[in-house]
């Protein structure tokens, strides 16, 4: 039985977002959308997290930070890039200090489009991510069995 899908804990990191996507991510946690009814909890700790939600493009200063957070998360883990900035750099793409989307630093599993991404599409993206999380767990189990 897979319980991962029933209790995904997510970690939200703001990598130079304009704050537009951030408030939409937080809106998902408010009573209107109430993602806790799917067992989703917003944790502040990478070691407890299953889903890493990143908003905003990666800049040269937080490259290392994002990589560090990602490395601290125990397997299986997924990364969701929320908003066009996180997907490709968006309007900030040409800036001298922006490295581009999140996938410049760590592998991204789901891209959520929009500027700002709507709460509905964020929830949609996370539900998709849960499917991938489940696949990763099965793969992990198989690898363990082979060893």
């Amino acid at each position, binding site marked *: 039985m*897979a*319980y991962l899908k029933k209790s995904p804990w997510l970690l939200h990191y703001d990598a130079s977002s304009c704050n537009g996507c951030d408030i939409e991510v937080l809106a998902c946690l408010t009573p209107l959308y109430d993602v806790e*009814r799917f067992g989703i909890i917003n944790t502040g700790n990478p*070691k407890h997290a*299953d889903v890493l939600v990143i908003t905003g493009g990666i800049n040269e200063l937080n490259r290392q930070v994002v990589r560090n957070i990602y490395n601290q998360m*125990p397997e299986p883990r997924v990364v969701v890039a929320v908003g066009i900035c996180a997907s490709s750099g968006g309007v900030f793409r040409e800036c001298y200090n922006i490295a581009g989307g999140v996938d410049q630093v760590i592998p991204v599993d789901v891209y959520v489009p929009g500027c700002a991404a709507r709460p509905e599409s964020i929830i949609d993206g996370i539900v998709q991510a849960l499917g991938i999380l489940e696949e990763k767990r099965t793969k992990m189990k198989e690898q363990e069995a082979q060893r």
Partner: protein
Amino acid sequence: MMSILNALVYLILAPVLGGLVAGIDRKITARMQGRVGPPILQPFYDVAKLFEKEDVTVTPSQNYYILSYLVFMAVTGALFFAGGDMLLVIFAFTLAHVFIVLGAYAAYSPYSYLGAERELIALMAYEPMIILTAVGLYLVTGSFYVSDIAASTVPVILYLPGVFLGFLTVLTIKLRKSPFDISTSHHAHQELVKGLTTEFSGATLGKIEIAHWYETVVMLGIVYLFFGFNPLLAIIVIALVYLLEIFIDNTFSRMKWEMTMKSGWGAAAILGFLNLAVLYYFYLGV
């Protein structure tokens, strides 16, 4: 024979009961905030998931400390439900907490250090009142044995209203509810990055959660002792007490550690001691 059976039943049933209480807690909390809330079985899903995750360990010793925490928490409850000595129960209970603090100290991280220190402060804050509770129960029923206290027909609550209120105060600290959730909290995960449990993940974190379920059942068991003369009343009171805790949790914000200290010791000094003094003077004086 009966007592060993009780302990066994406790060991098996307490996690189920504790988990259910935690689930109902989350559901009621959500309803109080105008949300739908997670399913009642959510705490079980969470723990089952934690056991599916990769195990990331900072230092190997931390896992042994947490295992000891779980074992001693189970032992505490087993002693309690076997009708053992109340003082021994308190001793095992404290020992269990020393282990989780050691576990947090073993993982080198400023967050878990801070969490560990705060847990020690909480330990200091509630310990006097818990001991006074045992003393009060002894004064009224004439025995430190849980089995005797539970079987006593004296309406304990009438003699120990102050001690009971004091115990409720420390129960809030003990269940790590607002305003006293300084070492780790179920709601504000961002502050202190969840304190004590920062460096624990996967199965180890799951064990902490299970230990907390055991702990909840023991604490509610102590509430039972005040109403042992009427089991039905006792169960109603336990439900009300827990509802009250959820209500307090949702209406208060977190306070500083000084407040925890003052509340814990204040409850012990004013409610506990005064009650015992009055009891000693009027009840045992004759």
